[in-house]
């Protein structure tokens, strides 16, 4: 894949633009009062992260990220939001001091993470292989080295599905009266 070679501040322009979009949308998710807008901004964030995967030569991951996150998980979130009929007015109020404390805590975490990780790039052997992110290569690894985790994740999915159905099931009338009697 051919890349633009335009550099701004010594960085490729596509990385800068995508990072800008990603961070802006992520900030919009957490600061917006309307949950529906938050979901839409989060979908936008996932799209830009998928674009990051593409410039990192992880093509299959980019598509799976779009299908699973933007396509399945966020649609689930949207459905639940519309089911619960949430809007700006139902948004719980947060105290000002709590917001300041959250900002300081997140800023401190950022400083600690950046300071502890900024040397780690020296230890990365830069050895990109052509086609490492394609389905053929990933499938080979998934069904040989990672076969047991793959099967286990299937069981996890089954358990999550049963749990979600059980939790989401509305209690029938005689069941709920039974509960009230025992309570």
């Amino acid at each position, binding site marked *: 894949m051919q890349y633009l070679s335009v550099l701004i501040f010594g960085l490729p322009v596509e990385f800068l633009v995508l990072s800008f979009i990603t961070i802006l949308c992520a900030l919009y998710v*957490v600061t917006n009062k309307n949950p529906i807008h938050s979901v839409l901004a989060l979908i936008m964030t996932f799209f830009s992260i998928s674009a*990051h995967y593409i410039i*990192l030569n992880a093509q299959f991951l980019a598509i799976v990220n779009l299908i699973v996150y933007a396509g399945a998980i966020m649609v689930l979130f949207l459905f639940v939001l519309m089911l619960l009929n949430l809007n700006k007015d139902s948004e719980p109020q947060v105290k000002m001091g709590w917001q300041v404390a959250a900002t300081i805590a997140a800023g401190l975490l950022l400083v600690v*993470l950046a300071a502890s990780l900024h040397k780690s*790039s020296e230890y990365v052997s830069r050895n990109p292989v052509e086609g490492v992110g394609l389905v053929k290569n990933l499938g080979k690894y*998934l069904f040989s080295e990672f076969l047991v985790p793959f099967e286990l994740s299937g069981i*996890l999915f089954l358990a*999550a599905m049963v749990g979600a159905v059980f939790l989401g099931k509305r209690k029938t009338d005689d069941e709920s009266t039974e509960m009230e009697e025992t309570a």
Partner: protein
Amino acid sequence: MKPDSIFNSLDISHYIYLSCVLFCIGMFGVLMRRNAIVLLMCIELMLNAVNLLFAAFSSYMGDASGQLFVFFIMVVAAAEAAVGLAILVMVYRNTKSTDVGLLNNLKG
């Protein structure tokens, strides 16, 4: 590896910084918001920051294991979202609100 590949013009440290920023934004949201559904979304954001870092390291080192880890994180995220939203719907049925501040019965 082509000479104009992004791996030559961009150091991995920039991806590390980007992931750190995304993770901290997610944590900021978890600390600041009290709407349970936004909390779940912030957790997804943090998981995605980790995914991005896994993919960046995997691509720079030419090792597919990192990208497979991302798949497993996606599986866990999907399962977590499904169960979390089911719990959320149940909580909403009982309290008519998604405010996590109301769920303080275990405080003692």
